[in-house]
């Protein structure tokens, strides 16, 4: 430890936060608090989807203190990403992509609240492979943070020890901080910029969780006359119990599989009808995921 200098270390962390601050902005959420957005590239900003009110123009406060109007280009609940386009071209830097992170690596969460810079510091707590969000989004890496960051940091950049961007800070269950990785945001932002929304897979059925003896599944409560479920011969009262041979215990698990990349795919649903099991092959349709 002889050459470790605590105050130099402290300054280094503060310098990283200060360097990223000009990329950040702040906006008021519908819950009377502020959340953070940050410049992605080409004048587009990224924010946490759930913090952004639908269909409203957003007042962004830049780190300079200037306020600008921003348009909501689109939102992707499957990755928690919203894309904003402020009017004019705010002079904000873009953050470089971070390299691989491992548990224990330093993580610096940066935020902005009404123009004032925020920073919180901790470590990457856990890193895992790709996973699927409840709304069917493919999240390229699973990164949990051991960082004590409050609500105002939501949607802010999470940086590594070089000041490079690991991803965006979001909250999972019990308000645990997690990172939406850079490459996932990159994909979502490209789709939102092109189409203004992301797709979700569509069955065209109203589903309700049901438990009948040992059977857990999703009962068909309603059908879209022009939807894939009806076309495949599903009936009201059918209970969907599996998806391509894997058990699906209810609507939640089906929705998780109907993500943006499911549209157009063919799937074999295991269905119980009148106590009998049968397989129904269905081509997944597409709807905008709002």
């Amino acid at each position: 430890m002889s050459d470790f200098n605590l105050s130099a270390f402290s300054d280094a962390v503060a310098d990283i936060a200060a360097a990223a601050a000009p990329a950040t902005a702040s906006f008021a959420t519908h819950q009377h608090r502020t959340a953070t957005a940050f410049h992605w590239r080409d004048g587009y900003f990224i924010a946490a989807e759930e913090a952004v009110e639908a269909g409203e123009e957003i007042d962004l406060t830049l780190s300079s203190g200037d306020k600008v109007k921003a348009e909501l280009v689109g939102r992707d609940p499957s990755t928690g990403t919203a894309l904003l386009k402020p009017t004019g071209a705010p002079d904000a830097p873009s953050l470089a992509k971070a390299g691989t992170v491992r548990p224990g690596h330093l993580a610096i969460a940066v935020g902005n609240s009404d123009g004032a810079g925020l920073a919180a510091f901790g470590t990457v707590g856990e890193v895992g492979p790709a996973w699927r969000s409840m709304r069917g989004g493919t999240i390229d890496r699973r990164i949990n943070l051991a960082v004590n960051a409050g609500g105002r940091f939501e949607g802010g950049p999470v940086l590594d020890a070089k000041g490079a961007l690991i991803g965006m800070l979001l909250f999972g269950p019990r308000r645990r901080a997690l990172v939406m990785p850079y490459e996932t945001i990159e994909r979502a932002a490209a789709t939102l910029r092109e189409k203004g929304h992301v797709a979700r897979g569509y069955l065209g059925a109203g589903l309700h969780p049901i438990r009948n003896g040992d059977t857990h599944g999703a009962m068909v409560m309603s059908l879209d006359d022009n939807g894939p479920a009806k076309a495949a011969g599903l009936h009201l009262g059918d209970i969907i119990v599996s998806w391509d041979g894997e058990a699906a215990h209810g609507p939640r698990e089906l929705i998780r599989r109907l993500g943006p990349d499911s549209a157009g795919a063919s799937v074999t649903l295991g269905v119980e009808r009148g106590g009998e099991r049968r397989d129904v092959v269905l081509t997944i349709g597409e709807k905008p995921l709002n």
Partner: protein
Amino acid sequence: MASHGITRRRLTILIALDDAVRAEHLSTALAATDDLLPIVAGSSDSGDRADVAIVDDNSLERRDLEGGGLEGAATDPAIPQVLLSQRGRRQRPADNVFAVLPAAADDLLIAAAARLAAAGYRISGEGRPLSDRHDDFAFHDDDLSDEEPVDDRAGRPPLSPRESEVLALLAEGAPNKVIARRLNISVHTAKFHVAAILIKLGAANRTDAIAIAMRQGLVLV
């Protein structure tokens, strides 16, 4: 039209919050509706009998300590209360607390809760706090409450036909402006319906409302 049959006369809403600035702000927002008449506790006319009281943790606690000292009419145990709480609800709220909302709840959400409470609906779902639901990014299944049990909705009022129409448009991603245009209603009324839907479904926001509605068969999957 905002007054859609819940009540004809204006509901008197007593606002008894510790945060005076918030109380004023909320009062202004409620006064802008055409069916609510807000009164801030401690003001001269707060003695009138209120239909609903909006309280927070502190004003509620102070009343408990002082054995009924909450200003004016809110002490009347018969008055339904909407609690704006900063705490997770571990304890069952008192009988006259008809709704528990997060402290930072939107004014429209509070208005919707007040209307429902005045109409006698209890909207505090067991074990389902209305805020801070971040289930979308649950990795472990044990992070989630299981599939909504069938009786989850038992204590919740059903959606009105109009609210169902609004929900269907919400699920298509329509912003308030588009909902208003499609249903030929004002943007204000559209917001009002959206707020009522959030309350009734116990949703934290629009996205959450759609996710809940999808899991309950209210929106096509």
